[in-house]
Each structure stands twice: as structure tokens, then as C-alpha cells.
């Protein structure tokens, strides 16, 4: 039987961070009777995928798309089904609304996709007829590659696509959505992550729970309550104490200390190493540097009133995709547009208001060095520029710019500094360090990394990562 801890401040497992990875691993461990404590710096759960209210409206921080929709053609293979089963949250309870259709737009060239993979294949064939055989060969190579195993080799996707495809534009157009949905590397993505995201976006598909991220966060927190898992909010961990082999306790900013048999940290690899306070030990995680800015407009009516019926648009101005920290505050050359109101069936009921979200690469260092006054000024300036620029990629968007402006009654923008605030990631790195540790192990036998720096990113990835660490590092060894 598990030796369940009884001393009041000693736990079986302490989890740092109440993001999706932390909450998911806590549910797994609590489910089988372990005494678990979650320590979270913020006052809300969800981490990068949280929610807030502004101007009387609810906003999701990070939900553009729930990937891995178990579409008809992808059947039971979707990891989303696996994680629902593991957490015992019925998939139906999420009330998933499917995307209408989405697009990758490079200059004059468009590739459209929806939740039917065959449609995407036909689009690739239509736009790149000469690539048909090579693309099929690439797809077979991707199926054969052990992308989902913990020791998958992190080779360069750019190199592979360069070898396999004849037309570099197709390679660039495949890199764009996959990098945006989960690459911590500059201007590239490692091949296993590319395959996982390709499957997640194209083979499975995009959806959105009708209630947004709360549809996932609420059942998770309800379950934790039921299972008696303790959760302390507003409780930043200041340091993790070790004796060189094992971790013994964590200490909060306010000085409180907690001991435990196992520790799971979801705040990032490098950030966890910093908490270990071992100044002479070389860091094993590199510093990530890819961050973003996102501007949101709330407008009257429905996107269809403007003729905009797509859900997500990945856009790039030229035929060369550049994915890195820009040299200026914001890189307008590429980005992602999301119209969350275009999930779900077209209903005739009149929509009172809708949202437009536009995301671009941004430079953390430049944003963080601004004085408070300058920061607010730049934020205001870029908010407008970003929204105007985004309209270029929507059908007849530019000509509707005045109308759109008049109908917009609330805007909000978050910068790389906001991401740092929500995740504590160094550099506001959206997807953490380019160094990943898939099995979550560290040099300390009872300390594990989960979530972003395992290399499993996005909502589904973070949750699966948290589950995998709970299962393979703790439950299997009880």
C-alpha cells in the first residue's frame, strides 16, 4: 500500500504550479490516494491558459484552439480522448465546437484546412501539384518516425523538409502553424514535435469548448476538491532545498516550508534549476527566447457580418517564414489570427458581440526594458498597428477597417511581459526552453519537470505531460 503521509506538513507529492500540467498530474495522483499539495504563485489557476475579466467581459488568456479534436477520420487515436479517460472527464462534457475552416496564407498563396484531413491533402495537391508524391513520402516518413516515444531524436524539421520536398514554399507553409503552436526553438522545430503538432492540427483538428478554458479548468478543480488535494494560491515557491541526491523541501516566499517524498515542478526547466539555488552547477536547460504579443478586439455583431467565416489564419507576408525573437518590439511579417466565434455550427441567432485575436512574435528584452509610461504608450501604439495589419489577412479586411473600428468597443493587449507574469518563464518564453526533458527526470531522483519543458506543449500537450510524469515517475513505482 502507498505509505500515505500523515504528518500535517509532509506530503507524498508537492506540485509547483497550477497550470494545466500541474492540475492534471495532481488529479492523477489524488485519484489513487496520494497526499498532494499544489503551490501556485498566482491567485487563479490555469497558468498560461487562464482567464480574466475586463470591462465586464470574460477573456481566455490563451485559448485559440483546442487541438487534437477526435475527428471522424482520426478516430480513436486522438490523445485528447486518452487524457479525458485518464482524468475521468467525459469528452462530451467539454461540448466541443469544431472549427469552420482555417488557412495558412503566404503572400498570394493559401492552403486551407478543416477537421477532415482528406480536404487538407486535396488542398496541398491543388496548390502544389508537383509535390504530390514527395508529400506522400513525407507523410509516410512521419508515421514511421517514433515521434511519441520519450527518446525520440530531436532532429531539425527544416533540414528534413528541405530534403524531402522540392518546393520550399510548401515547407515554409507547414512550418508556420506548427512552430506557432509549439516550437521553443528559433526558426525551426524539432521533428518529433513537428509530427505531434501536425497530427494535432491537421490529422485530428481544431475545436473549442463552448465555455472556453473554464470547461477544462472547472472539472479539474472540482475533482481536486473531491479528492482532497490541497491547493495554495498566492504561494510562490522561493527555493527548493536539496542534499545533492534528493530534494527535501520547498520554501515559500513567506518563509513557510513543506516537505515531501516527491516533487513535480511545472514552472520550467531553467526556472526550476534557479529555485534549486546551486550557483556552481552548470545549467542543463538553454534559455528560450520566442515570445509573442496578442491584441484582442471585442466588436458588435458577428464576424460573418464582415464576411469573415474562417476560424484561424496563420499568415506570413513573404514566401520565407521567420520564427524568432524579432530585432524590434514586434514582428509584423507573420502572425496568427483567431476568430473564436467561428467555432461551432452557424446559428441563426443574432450574436451580440464577438472577438478578434491577432498574435505576432515580440521581443521580451525590448518590452521589459521600457519604463512604465513608455510601456503603456508602446502597448497602445502597437495594439492599433497590430489590429490594422491583421485586417489585411481577412477577406476585404482593409476596406472594412473603418466599420470594424466603429463597431469595436473594447480592446486588450498582452505583451511578452504578461507572459512572464503568468508563467514566470525567463524571457517570457512562450514555449519555454529549447532544451526539453521528455520523461521529466532531473538529476535529483525525486524531482521531476512536467509540462512545457518536457516538450509537450499546448493545452493537450501540457495535460498529457503532467499525466505522464504522474504515471511513469510516481504511480508505477509505488
Amino acid at each position, binding site marked *: *500500500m*502507498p505509505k500515505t503521509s500523515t504528518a500535517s506538513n509532509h506530503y507524498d507529492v508537492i506540485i509547483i504550479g497550477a497550470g494545466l500540467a500541474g492540475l492534471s498530474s495532481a488529479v492523477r495522483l489524488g485519484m*489513487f490516494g496520494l497526499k498532494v499539495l499544489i503551490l501556485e504563485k498566482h491567485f487563479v489557476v490555469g497558468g498560461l491558459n487562464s482567464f480574466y475579466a475586463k470591462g465586464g467581459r470574460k477573456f481566455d488568456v490563451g485559448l485559440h484552439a483546442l487541438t487534437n479534436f477526435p475527428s471522424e477520420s482520426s478516430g*480513436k487515436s486522438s490523445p485528447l480522448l486518452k487524457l479525458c479517460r485518464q482524468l475521468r472527464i467525459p469528452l462530451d462534457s467539454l461540448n466541443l465546437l469544431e472549427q469552420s475552416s482555417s488557412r495558412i496564407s503566404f503572400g498570394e498563396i493559401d492552403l486551407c484546412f478543416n477537421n477532415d484531413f482528406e480536404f487538407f491533402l486535396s488542398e496541398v495537391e491543388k496548390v502544389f501539384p508537383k509535390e504530390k508524391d514527395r508529400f506522400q513520402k513525407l507523410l509516410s516518413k512521419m508515421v514511421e518516425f517514433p515521434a511519441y516515444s520519450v527518446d525520440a531524436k530531436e532532429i531539425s524539421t527544416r533540414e528534413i523538409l528541405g530534403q524531402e520536398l522540392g518546393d520550399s514554399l510548401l515547407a515554409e507553409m507547414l512550418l508556420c502553424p506548427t512552430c506557432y503552436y509549439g516550437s521553443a526553438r528559433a526558426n525551426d522545430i524539432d521533428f518529433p514535435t513537428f509530427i505531434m503538432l501536425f497530427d494535432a492540427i491537421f490529422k485530428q483538428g481544431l475545436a473549442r469548448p463552448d465555455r472556453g478554458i473554464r470547461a477544462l479548468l472547472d472539472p479539474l478543480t472540482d475533482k481536486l476538491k473531491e479528492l482532497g488535494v490541497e491547493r495554495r494560491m498566492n504561494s510562490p515557491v522561493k527555493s527548493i532545498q536539496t542534499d545533492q541526491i534528493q530534494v527535501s523541501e520547498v520554501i515559500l516566499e513567506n518563509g513557510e516550508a513543506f516537505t515531501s517524498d516527491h516533487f513535480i515542478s511545472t514552472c520550467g526547466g531553467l526556472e526550476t534549476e534557479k529555485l534549486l539555488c546551486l550557483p556552481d552547477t552548470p545549467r542543463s536547460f538553454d534559455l528560450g527566447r520566442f515570445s509573442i504579443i496578442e491584441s484582442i478586439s471585442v466588436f458588435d455583431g458577428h464576424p460573418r457580418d464582415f464576411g469573415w467565416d474562417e476560424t484561424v489564419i496563420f499568415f506570413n507576408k513573404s514566401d520565407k517564414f521567420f520564427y524568432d525573437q524579432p530585432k524590434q518590439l514586434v514582428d509584423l511579417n507573420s502572425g496568427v489570427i483567431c476568430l473564436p466565434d467561428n467555432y461551432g455550427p452557424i446559428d441563426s441567432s443574432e450574436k451580440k458581440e464577438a472577438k478578434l485575436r491577432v498574435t505576432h512574435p515580440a521581443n521580451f528584452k525590448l518590452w521589459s526594458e521600457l519604463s512604465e509610461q513608455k510601456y503603456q504608450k508602446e502597448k497602445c501604439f502597437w495594439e492599433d498597428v497590430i489590429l490594422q495589419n491583421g485586417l489585411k489577412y481577412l477577406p476585404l479586411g482593409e476596406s472594412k477597417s473603418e466599420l470594424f473600428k466603429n463597431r469595436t468597443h473594447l480592446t486588450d493587449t498582452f505583451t511578452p511581459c504578461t507572459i512572464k507574469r503568468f508563467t514566470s518563464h525567463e524571457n517570457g518564453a512562450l514555449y519555454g526552453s529549447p532544451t526539453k526533458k521528455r520523461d521529466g527526470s532531473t538529476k535529483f531522483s525525486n524531482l521531476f519537470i512536467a509540462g512545457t519543458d518536457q516538450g509537450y506543449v499546448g493545452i493537450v500537450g501540457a495535460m498529457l505531460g503532467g499525466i505522464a510524469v504522474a504515471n511513469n515517475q510516481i504511480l508505477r513505482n509505488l
Partner: protein
Amino acid sequence: MNKNNIKQIVLDIIAEIAPDEDLSGVKSDIRLREQLDLDSMDFLDIVMELRKQHGIDVPEAEYRQLESLDSSANYLLPKFESGATA
């Protein structure tokens, strides 16, 4: 406790962890994986539920013993019996 009881216990656990699977026609002598959509994560859950509900420990090296209902019954029966007399 007999083998049939144990098969039912395992089936009940599967019904709990995989409510979307149809268990009505499951055959005892055929591997569960061949009849149902179960993966290694699901087998871990069967093991964890046996521990939680019945106090039975299955070491990781022996997870394979649970591959069919028959093999589970054969493997678990002595464990249930020794638990009952302990």
C-alpha cells in the same frame, strides 16, 4: 472469492476507467487489447484500482499477467485469497 468474481471485478474496473467501451461481448480467453481500445495507461489504471479498491499490489514486471480476463483471474486469485485470510 472465485475466478468468476475476479473477472467481474476486472470488468467493473474497466467500465469505470473506460466508460466509452462496450464490454458486453468481452471474451475471457482473448487478450483485452485485441477486443477493446486499451493502452498501457489504461492497464496502469486497472492496477491502481486493484490497489485502491482491494489492497492488491501488482508489481510493474507482472502487469502482463492482466492481459486477458482468464490470465487476470489466474494471477489475482491467490492474491485475493491471501488478502482475505491475512
